């Protein structure tokens, strides 16, 4: 007996079918409305970005700020608390500083801004390349990049993912004694646009053991690479200690360690126009001196297999390396965690070559992703962040880790008389990695994705390839990146 026969107006099958159809329709409707919401958000964000990006002079200005002269005092008073609660989180990503004091100092400025403007801020300190590049790539692929980020900006700017901050930076560059030139030049793209707002100058001094090396040299650092190769074997005690915690693996620091040697011998990575130039004959002597250090067993052998950027940090901090050329993250870590080793550590320019001694420098700054959910808040956050008193807070709390971007902040005994004075002089005269060219979009592909220079050194040192041939192969590989990112 079926349901109709029992007096029901429909069969069981019809009932099930109808219910299922109704459920499917409800589900579709629910999904549809959700999509509508997302769609609305998605259209809102680019609109904000569209107004903010091309006209950064007007877009970031909070109410009451328009027309105010960009003096420290004026800017300091301008941010007006916005009583509207901004939905979502304002994400700030930056590469790990390897100590919590520095990370918190940077992150907390944004937290303070968020509190004043009812924006939930979440900052993350992320280990360096390639981890952060992967994270950024994944976030972008998912359509949820962070609002602000201090990594891989040249790449993301040329890809059109990050916006132009020239107007924002120009408002601040003359304040507090003016910014160091490298603070601007290192964040200026080939098209002349500034892609990040600088908050610190990161320099790469040689950290060296004054107690051990100084005992052999009369209290000074090695005069030259040749002296290092000559005296190193008398100082080190392998496998417990090696003269140089030299970075050469598939990690972020190998480029600096190599380019310091190339510069000392008159070489370079790129020419004036930004075209790869590793094949330049002047690079041969620099590559050769690095190979000589390796063949003299002056560098920790496990460096070849290193895949984390902190390899040389750890080697020095554990006392295994007697020299490490690195940003002052090592010194920053020592000041917090190992004062004894910190006291024994000197800072100076990397060893000298026939062309001189050169250290890498560059500014660290935040760029903004144009497709971030709260992109309309990004320029406001940077306006707050860049105020000299906020950046002074950071440099005061992390003294020694970074050189301040404003010259006035690098005055006083600490920066002029202590061992950190070397950092301030590097900030004045340091070179950016791409020297003599401005930052190049192809560079991070070579340094953080393909590790071309690490592979080149591997061929020379471990496969005994002729330097010229290794240079040629590296040049081809670098040109592939150049053609992909620059030459359309």
């Amino acid at each position, binding site marked *: 007996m079926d349901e109709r026969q029992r007096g029901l107006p429909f069969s069981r099958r019809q009932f099930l079918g109808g219910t299922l159809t109704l459920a499917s329709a409800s589900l579709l409707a629910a999904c549809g409305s959700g999509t509508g919401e997302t769609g609305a958000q998605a259209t809102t964000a680019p609109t904000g970005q569209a107004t903010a990006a091309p006209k950064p002079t007007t877009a970031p200005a909070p109410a009451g700020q328009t027309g105010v002269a960009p003096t420290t005092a004026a800017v300091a008073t301008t941010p007006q608390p916005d009583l509207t609660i901004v939905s979502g989180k304002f994400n700030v990503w930056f590469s790990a500083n390897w100590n919590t004091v520095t990370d918190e100092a940077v992150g907390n400025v944004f937290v303070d801004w968020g509190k004043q403007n009812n924006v939930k801020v979440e900052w993350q300190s992320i280990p360096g390349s390639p981890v952060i*590049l992967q994270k950024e790539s994944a976030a*972008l692929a998912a359509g949820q990049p962070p609002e602000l980020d201090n990594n891989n900006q040249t790449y993301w700017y040329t890809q059109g993912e990050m916006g132009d901050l020239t107007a924002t930076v120009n408002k601040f560059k003359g304040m507090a004694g003016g910014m160091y030139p490298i603070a601007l030049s290192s964040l200026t793209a080939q098209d002349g646009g500034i892609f990040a707002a600088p908050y610190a100058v990161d320099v790469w001094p040689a950290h060296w053991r004054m107690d051990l090396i100084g005992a052999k040299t009369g209290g000074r650092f090695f005069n030259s690479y040749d002296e290092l190769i000559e005296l190193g074997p008398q100082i080190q005690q392998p496998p417990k200690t090696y003269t140089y915690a030299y970075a050469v693996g598939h990690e972020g620091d190998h480029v600096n360690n190599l380019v310091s040697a190339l510069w000392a011998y008159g070489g370079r990575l790129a020419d004036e126009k930004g075209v790869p130039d590793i094949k330049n004959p002047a690079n041969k002597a620099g590559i050769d001196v690095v190979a000589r250090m390796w063949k003299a067993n002056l560098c920790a052998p496990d460096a070849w297999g290193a*895949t984390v950027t902190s390899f040389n940090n750890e080697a020095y901090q554990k006392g295994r390396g007697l020299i490490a050329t690195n940003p002052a993250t090592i010194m920053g870590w020592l000041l917090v965690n190992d004062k004894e080793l910190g006291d024994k550590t000197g800072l100076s320019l990397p060893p000298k070559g026939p062309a001189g001694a050169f250290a890498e420098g560059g500014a660290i700054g935040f760029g903004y992703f144009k497709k971030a959910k709260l992109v309309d808040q990004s320029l406001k956050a940077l306006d707050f962040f860049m105020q000299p008193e906020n950046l002074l807070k950071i440099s005061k709390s992390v003294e020694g880790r970074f050189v301040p971007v404003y010259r006035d902040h690098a005055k006083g005994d600490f920066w002029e008389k202590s061992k950190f004075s070397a950092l301030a002089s590097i900030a004045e005269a340091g070179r950016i990695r791409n020297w003599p060219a401005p930052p190049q979009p192809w560079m991070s592909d070579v340094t953080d994705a393909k590790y071309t220079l690490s592979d080149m050194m591997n061929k020379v040192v471990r496969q005994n390839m002729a330097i010229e041939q290794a240079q040629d192969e590296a040049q081809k590989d670098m040109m592939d990146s150049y053609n992909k990112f620059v030459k359309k």
Partner: protein
Amino acid sequence: MARAEATYTPKATGILPVVPSRSIVRRLLGPDWRLGWLLVCPVFLILMALLVYPFLDAILLSFQNRFIGKVGTWVGFGNYADLFSNPNSHFAKAALNTVVITGSAIIGKFFIGTAMACVLNQHIRLKNLWRGLMFLPWAVPAVVTAYAWRFMFDTSGPINGLIAQFHLRDDYIYFFNDAQIALPSLVLVIIWSGTPFWTMNILAGMQAVPAELYEAAELDGAGTVQRFLYITMPSLKHVFFVTALLSTIWTSANLVQILVLTGGGPDYSTITLPLLAYLTAIPGARLGGGAAIAMTMLPAYLVLVYYLTRQMLKQE
């Protein structure tokens, strides 16, 4: 009645009948095909969205040159050709390493897993505790175990600590940093973490072997070794086969441990196809190239999945 409803009048419309009659549809799809398909529809959609679409998208991606967040450009077989023609692609080395790591790890897991299962199948004290401990390496997240091994084998780890303390060698052993021994060290870790799965399956298979077979063999004078070779091993044939297939698929697709322990280095000595695909696609920002590398593994996986499915259906 249904037949009559489906009758067309081609003369009147001038159009040939292209829609099959309702009875044909019924015959093909069953009497309740509409409701049937409606009920199956959600599962079908989920399968399409979660399996078929990403899979097809990956195939299409492998024919494109595409950066993250950008529209791809069609390059045909360019990405595939690049794998074989570009000396810096490391594809051949990655393929060879994948085979070597998978093969040696499977052999290691087979022998150690069988031995462990034999031990745990005996009447030993605290049997359940040992079984629980044995499964630990498999239960702990791969990234945690990878870091634990990295610490063990580090220059500041316990093994090199002993070497330095007792002056056993002039230099440390650079397990993951020496191209000569990085691959065997890696295989050791993969065997360690994957063996419990084998042990678990083999142990379960052993417990299903009827005790009467062993008793009969014992009465016939068969020794321990003979009982193992002529009763246990043949009884476990299907278990070995299925376990080996699953383990091959998982081991060859292993990414986390290799990424954490060696990152494919030193000197690409431990690079594998999944890792190369990942490094190319994500840090290298070449989505198409990465997809092409992943797709080269597809034929092998199809064969494995075919045999696995056939074996499992046969068992049912």
